[in-house]
């Protein structure tokens, strides 16, 4: 149940706060697609090349990060009954710092100027500091935390670990200090960012949104209460095993076994989600369900790959294996899930804010559009097809890079262009209705 005791309309941030995050995010997706289209197979040779690093951070910080931060500022008052304090200041400042930081970081990866990496560290570090501070106050004010709130707290803690490790790596990249065991530290940064921040946030938010949005039964109580905490502890133990393997000479088998166990928990989550979706009351298959299913099937595939590497250790030493994991996780799991949420959140916010405005002005002569009118199902499906074709092309590019790398880039850019178009159309409908309501509010005869 939504824990919105004490929720008032004033607690929700102005619509411009989440929307500024949502509207800029697809631009980074378009930039990532265009970059892959321009450089082609070079981006898929090694995970260490500047192009691959730039691509990865355009996706994780630019596309995923911005949407997740914007959504969190918006949904905390709704699902926790606890708004982010000074949300306009926190939203505006963190948005500016993060966007600036992502852009400068790209320049740093490509070596476009001296001091860019240092500037990126400062901008991104302070952007995340502002965001985490605001969100943490809201999360820790909740007196009786639901499993979703507990999961969100753990996800924010994982974000802090990811940012600290990322800052260290960027400092090493900029030559500020020497980093011993660069590969190990990068893997740790990745694991905490992907499994910790993205994975835990996705899982804990889905405890609320899957039953609510898709009219499914609830997730089992034991799963909601135990698994996010178990995953967090699992990541901490993995950190220790990684250290023991690299520094104390332990057999890598323990670390691989533990990674597979974490993967198995995510596979269990994907299996439960798919099962719940099968049992949903309303049998209509809309595009948000399609995106969500794609994400869960890819999560099963990813977990299967982590088990496969345990059985066939040679697989793990293949340079394409980490790229395969990255593509499936980002393009297959995280982006479709975030995309699905965007198509629910944006129409709802637009409708809700207009409804609030109409009732405040008592202006019933201007109709508020229905939520389905903000993003048309046909347009959203078109974007879904472009998104999964981009995923398929990216996977094929691992086998035939010269044939599919540029196609994957083009399709990914197209998918994000369509997403941006859909969001802009929703925004335009929101603005035109808001303007009509304001005019009506000024005219005493039209009430």
């Amino acid at each position, binding site marked *: *149940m939504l824990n*919105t005791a004490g*929720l008032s309309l004033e607690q929700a941030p102005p619509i411009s706060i989440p929307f500024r995050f949502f509207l800029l995010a697809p631009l980074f997706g378009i930039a990532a697609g265009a970059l892959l289209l321009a450089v082609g197979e070079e981006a898929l040779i090694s995970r260490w090349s500047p192009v691959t690093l730039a691509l990865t951070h355009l996706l994780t910080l630019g596309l995923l990060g911005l949407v997740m931060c914007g959504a969190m500022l918006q949904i905390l008052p709704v699902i926790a009954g606890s708004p982010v304090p000074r949300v306009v200041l926190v939203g505006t400042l963190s948005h500016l710092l993060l966007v600036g930081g992502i852009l400068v970081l790209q320049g740093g990866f490509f070596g476009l100027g001296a001091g860019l990496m240092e500037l990126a560290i400062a901008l991104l570090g302070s952007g995340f500091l502002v965001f985490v501070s605001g969100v943490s106050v809201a999360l820790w004010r909740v007196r009786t935390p639901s499993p979703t709130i507990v999961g969100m707290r753990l996800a924010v803690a994982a974000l802090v670990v990811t940012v600290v490790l990322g800052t260290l790596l960027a400092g090493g990249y900029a030559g500020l200090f020497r980093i011993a065991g660069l590969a190990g530290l990068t893997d740790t940064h990745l694991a905490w960012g992907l499994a910790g921040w993205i994975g835990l946030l996705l899982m804990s938010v889905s405890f609320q949104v899957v039953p*609510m949005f898709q009219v499914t039964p609830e997730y089992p109580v034991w799963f909601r209460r135990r698994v996010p905490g178990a995953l967090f502890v699992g990541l901490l133990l993995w950190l220790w095993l990684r250290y023991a393997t690299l520094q104390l000479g332990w057999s890598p088998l323990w670390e691989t076994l533990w990674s597979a166990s974490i993967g198995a928990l995510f596979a269990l989550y994907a299996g439960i989600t798919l099962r719940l979706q099968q049992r949903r009351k*309303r049998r209509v298959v809309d595009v948000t369900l399609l995106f969500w299913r794609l994400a869960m099937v890819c999560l099963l595939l990813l977990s299967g790959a982590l088990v496969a590497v345990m059985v066939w250790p040679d697989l793990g030493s293949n340079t394409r294996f980490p790229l395969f994991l990255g593509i499936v996780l980002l393009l297959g799991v995280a982006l479709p899930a975030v995309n699905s949420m965007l198509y629910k959140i944006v129409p709802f916010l637009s409708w809700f804010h207009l409804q609030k405005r109409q009732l405040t002005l008592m202006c019933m002569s201007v109709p508020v559009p229905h939520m389905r009118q903000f993003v048309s199902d046909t347009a959203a499906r078109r974007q879904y097809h472009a998104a999964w074709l981009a995923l398929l092309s990216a996977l094929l590019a691992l086998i035939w890079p010269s044939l599919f790398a540029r196609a994957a880039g083009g399709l990914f850019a197209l998918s994000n262009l369509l997403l941006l178009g859909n969001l802009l159309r929703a925004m335009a409908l929101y603005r035109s209705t808001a303007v009509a309501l304001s005019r009506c509010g000024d005219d005493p005869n039209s009430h």
Partner: protein
Amino acid sequence: MVAMERLLNVSELEPCEPLERTLEAARALPGGDYLRVIHRREPHLLYPLLEQAGLRWRTRRGGRAGYEILIWRHQDETAAEQVRAYLDAC
């Protein structure tokens, strides 16, 4: 005047259609009538909108889907009386 109950079942609709349909039906309520909404969750986001629209409500846990929300117009004593009678009978 005898108040008439208007029934709206939104228990199998995806968000935010329940909110949308409830608000539409509530705003179209003629004087003397009340709306009984069958819902599977407690619709916390609906309440501030109802308040702004000059409507009153009572929520009852139970019924066939989990929750029932009874909505009537502010100062509509006939409808309010019927809602009280309905809740007493539950």
